[in-house]
């Protein structure tokens, strides 16, 4: 694949072959990001929000529409750096739709009396006069929109990166804006900043592992392109210790992003500290992007070393499921609980990944989509439940909520049941798909562990319902704020998908199985 041919100095520069049609969604997003930055730079403050929303939604929708026109494309392009294949397109689509929902949440400004979910000025000191003034003047940090767009473009690129180096760049494009966004909450800013710091430092730490792993793999295969690595692995089966260690370190970086134990500890802190809208967006999309990359690396690059990584992934999956589920039990903060839940869910998805079969890939994809919609919906609900200090995330403040607001309580209960994997919700079909794939691949005991973990996880999902519906409301000021159309749409979409994928999953199941495999 190396394009450096044995030629003389006079070799003319041959243009790289790029299938712009196939990567147009990525380009649209990147372009929109640039436009968005220009909007920040050039337009007066008052008009920015409207224009930014226009750009963001326009870009997302345009990218989606474009994506729909290229569903049949299966191509490796940009000199082997990008693979647009079925799973990539599917995950790109899912990321885009979920990003759309995330954008809706982030655009919401009728929940907080003083503005949207982000600090009026992230640079102002928490509790300072500056902050008060900016808030009182209704400043909005519209810079979040270009950051958001870059993050989305990073994700979309991440799932289709066929070259480890590009994957690294995409990882950073995805992560850096998220580090920033995590630190910009309007309320509880100290927590938010702490989240950003932890996320950033640990994220940087993990990407150091990733790139070092890439270096070692490069040392082994003389290339960073996954198919090349795969063919080198088959070509020289011995002497693979470099590739082995490199793969391990790459996995550290990716497992960090999917929040697998023992690389999970950033998750609760970041999920809790970040603005809820960002948490919802991040929880849904990063999980998809990271799993997409993880599966591509494992299946395309290191498929030949399956027997090396499967036992290790077994242990990680088991730990992830159990630790996530068990710790979540004793959480009293609902965002934190959902964070641990996301860890446990990552474990369940890993079960599908480990199956290393078409069914496993399809199952994991389905699970990711299902999980994404449910979790973003759940965070949307959390953003609605507020008291005078902002969101009331402590579980005790949710007592009796379902009785006072049956609709919101009911929808949240639906999300909880979905995450718990109760039939007729998307979560059940997701679990079913990955378990089926795992059993078909002979990982029966893994499934049994997963079953036990599901039960433990069931406990804390169910406990939320207990608090909302079975507990007498105390004398407190928690109330459900009526959101604007933004959050309402996101919420409705999350609930609808959770239900529809539970009751009539066939179209999506077809989609994920027709997506086929990663191309090499």
């Amino acid at each position, binding site marked *: 694949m190396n394009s*450096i041919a044995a030629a003389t100095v006079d070799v003319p520069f041959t243009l790289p072959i790029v299938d712009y049609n196939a990567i147009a969604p990525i380009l649209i997003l990147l372009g929109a990001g640039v436009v968005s930055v220009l909007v920040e730079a050039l337009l007066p403050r008052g008009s920015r929000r409207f224009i930014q929303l226009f750009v963001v939604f326009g870009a997302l929708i345009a990218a989606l529409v474009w994506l729909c026109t290229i569903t049949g494309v299966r191509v490796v392009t940009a000199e082997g750096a990008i693979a647009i294949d079925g799973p990539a397109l599917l995950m790109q689509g899912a990321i885009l739709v979920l990003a759309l929902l995330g954008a809706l949440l982030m655009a919401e400004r009728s929940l907080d009396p003083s503005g949207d979910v982000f600090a009026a000025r992230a640079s102002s000191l928490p509790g300072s006069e500056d902050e008060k003034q900016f808030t009182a003047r209704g400043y909005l940090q519209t810079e979040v929109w270009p950051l958001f767009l870059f993050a989305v473009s990073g994700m979309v690129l991440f799932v289709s990166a066929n070259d480890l180096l590009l994957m690294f760049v995409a990882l950073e494009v995805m992560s850096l804006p998220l580090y920033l966004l995590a*630190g910009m909450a309007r309320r509880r800013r100290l927590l938010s*900043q702490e*989240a950003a710091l932890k996320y950033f430092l640990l994220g940087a730490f993990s990407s150091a592992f990733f790139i070092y792993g890439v270096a070692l793999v490069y040392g082994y295969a*003389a290339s960073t392109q996954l198919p090349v690595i795969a063919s080198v692995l088959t070509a020289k089966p011995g002497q693979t210790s470099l590739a082995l260690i490199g793969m391990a370190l790459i996995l550290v970086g990716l497992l960090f992003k999917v929040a697998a134990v023992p690389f999970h500890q950033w998750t609760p802190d970041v999920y809790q500290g970040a603005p809820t809208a960002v948490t919802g967006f991040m929880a849904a999309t990063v999980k998809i992007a990271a799993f997409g990359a993880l599966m591509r690396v494992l299946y395309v690059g290191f498929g030949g070393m399956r027997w090396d990584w499967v036992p290790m992934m077994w242990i990680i999956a088991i730990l992830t499921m159990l630790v996530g589920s068990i710790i979540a039990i004793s959480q009293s903060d609902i965002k934190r609980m959902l964070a641990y839940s996301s860890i446990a869910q990552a474990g369940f998805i890993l079960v599908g990944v480990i199956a290393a079969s078409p069914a496993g890939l399809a199952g994991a994809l389905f699970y990711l989509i299902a999980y994404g919609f449910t979790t973003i919906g759940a965070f949307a609900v959390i953003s609605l439940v507020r008291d005078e200090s902002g969101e009331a995330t402590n579980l005790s403040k949710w007592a009796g909520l379902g009785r006072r607001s049956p609709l919101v309580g009911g929808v949240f209960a639906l999300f909880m049941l979905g995450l718990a994997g109760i039939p007729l919700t998307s979560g059940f079909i997701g679990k079913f798909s990955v378990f089926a794939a795992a059993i078909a691949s002979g990982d029966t005991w893994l499934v049994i562990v997963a079953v036990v973990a599901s039960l433990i996880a069931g406990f804390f999902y169910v406990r939320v319902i207990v608090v909302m519906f079975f507990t007498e409301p105390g004398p407190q000021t928690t109330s459900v704020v009526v959101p604007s159309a933004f959050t309402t749409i996101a919420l409705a979409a999350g609930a609808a998908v959770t239900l529809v994928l539970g009751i009539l999953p066939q179209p999506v199941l077809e989609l994920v199985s027709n997506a086929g495999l990663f191309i090499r």
Partner: protein
Amino acid sequence: MNPANYIILSAILFSLGAIGVLVRRNAIIVFMSVELMLNAANLAFVAFARMNGNLDGQVAAFFVMVVAAAEVVVGLAIIVTIFRSRRSASIDEPNLLKY
């Protein structure tokens, strides 16, 4: 001399960077340690490029530098923000989020 020595050097630097991340409390030093780890990766890339006889490794190192530069900017901005609201650059101090 075995050219692998470069790689071994890079491994040692990588590990030292990791130690730095784990034992230092000043966020900036921690971050510098991360940079050290990235540099170790770069050294490995460069040495491997020579061993493998293609320039991809050097390009990779180049990208790592760019990424690191961007990361530094973002990281330092975050650290400055934290410092401003807490008047401390220790990464142990922001410890409100736990358990």
